[in-house]
């Protein structure tokens, strides 16, 4: 059970970091696109 918990925790952190990077990508990407557009 504890091993499973540890594995699940690692997976949670991995998912969290990936989604955080996605949000940063949308933020930076939208501004980059608009600056390039101007």
């Amino acid at each position, binding site marked *: 059970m504890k091993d499973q918990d540890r594995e699940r925790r690692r997976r949670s952190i991995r998912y969290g970091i990936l989604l955080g990077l996605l949000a940063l990508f949308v933020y930076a990407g*939208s501004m980059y696109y608009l600056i390039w557009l101007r």
Partner: protein
Amino acid sequence: MSYASTAGHDEHHDQPTGIMRWLTTTNHKDIGTMYLVFSLIMFMLGGFMIMLVRLELFQPGMQLMQPDFYNQLIGVHALIMIFAALMPAATGFANWMLPLQLGAPDMALPRLNNWGFWLLPPAAILLTMPFILAWFGIGDGAIATGWTFYAPLSVQGGIGVDFAIFAIHILGISSVMGSINIIVTIFNMRAPGMTLMNMPMFAWGWLITAFLLIATIPVLAGAVTMLLTDRHFGTHFFDAAGGGDPILFQHLFWFFGHPEVYILLLPVWGFMPQILQTFSRKPMYGYKAQVYAFWGIGILSVVVWAHHFFTAGMPVPALIYFMFSTMAISVPLAVLFFCWIATMWRGSMTFETPMLFAVGWIILFGIGGLTGLVLADVAADAQYHHTYFVVAHFHYTLFAGGIMGIMAGVYYWLPKMTGHMYNERLGKLHFWLTAISFNMTFIPQFFLGLAGMPRRIPDYALQFADFNAVSTVSALVLGLSQLLFIYNIVSCVRGGQKATDRVWEGAEGLEWTLPSPPPYHSFTVQPVIKS
């Protein structure tokens, strides 16, 4: 579906007490409670602001305030109600109920959860502080552009705009962190045997909401960052005098702003079918159809934004595209309405307060949806744009569809959260006062809009006086009747008749297998779902 559940122990380990408990807590129920309390406080603050606005509009002419202060009140009212009342209420329910409904011990990322909540109070202070600073002669008050920040007004506005930009950044970070946590919890923390297609509908509503937030909040953050650089660092993104494009700001804002409507509503659409099935005592109708409708609405919501500014000017093909794509949303939404009604059809219905709010919500939100269809028509919108018709429409959508839905959720889950039953008679009185005074406030505004009364103007022509007087008196009744809601919640938290574990006779789901109130640590051993 059947399940074997194990409620966890109720040890608090070395849990700090007093204020430190709330500052440092990583417990999903504590954080959920903080979100809900914060939301209630901000709901009352935003409501107080709009009471002042309605008092000013009681009669034509200027009575109580200067026009600039009026503009500040309507802008901050909207920002507070959207970002600090409705969104935190839905997040509060997510924190409280998602782990219980999914059979998880807590949210997937508890520390992030704590951080996400504690960003909210500073943001609320930033939004409202310019009012206080103006008393001391610093600055010229809060943001006076309305909640939409349209350039060039927002490029030229006072320090209230800077405070609001900072607040929006902080609120956005909080929302994105909350969304990440919710997605990870749904993907990674479901009980063994619970597949995505048999998890509770509330989890589906929030899953799509969370993805919408991650896709659109950073775009808003980018837009207001560029607004900030326009204001202070010499850029001209939105300043026509320097070669910029003010309409670009409208596109960017509404690319976030329209999905935001569904961000506010999808969590409610998630738990409302659960309430309907509980008090109809029969299974939810069309689970899969509702999930697909959620996806359809979620995807369509990011491709329809320009219907908010048809009159700003755009090519005819664009007008036609945005008109038809907006109208297309009514198809999946009609599927949802059909499923909600079919869930009640031939059910063994009783009308406790949550069910009263749920049925009232279907009717009133239906009016909001239908009047939205009217506004989606380019030709009709040319007349209705920027009138009180729009104000009435989005209050039917966001107050009836959002806040009355949240109220249904509060009455539904309050006995589970507190272990006590609320006062049913008071709850029903609260419903009827709210529903009647809400309609009496906003139906006149439809007629005012049709007659051409513009929104966001503190004075109006004499011909609009009667409807405005009715609207103001009803708005005051609506505001004051919310005191019953607060009294009922507070007295329920303090005591009352003991709630059973299942609370409602027809309730289905893992949260009802736990004691009322649930132990501090629930599901330390995961329940197993047997389909």
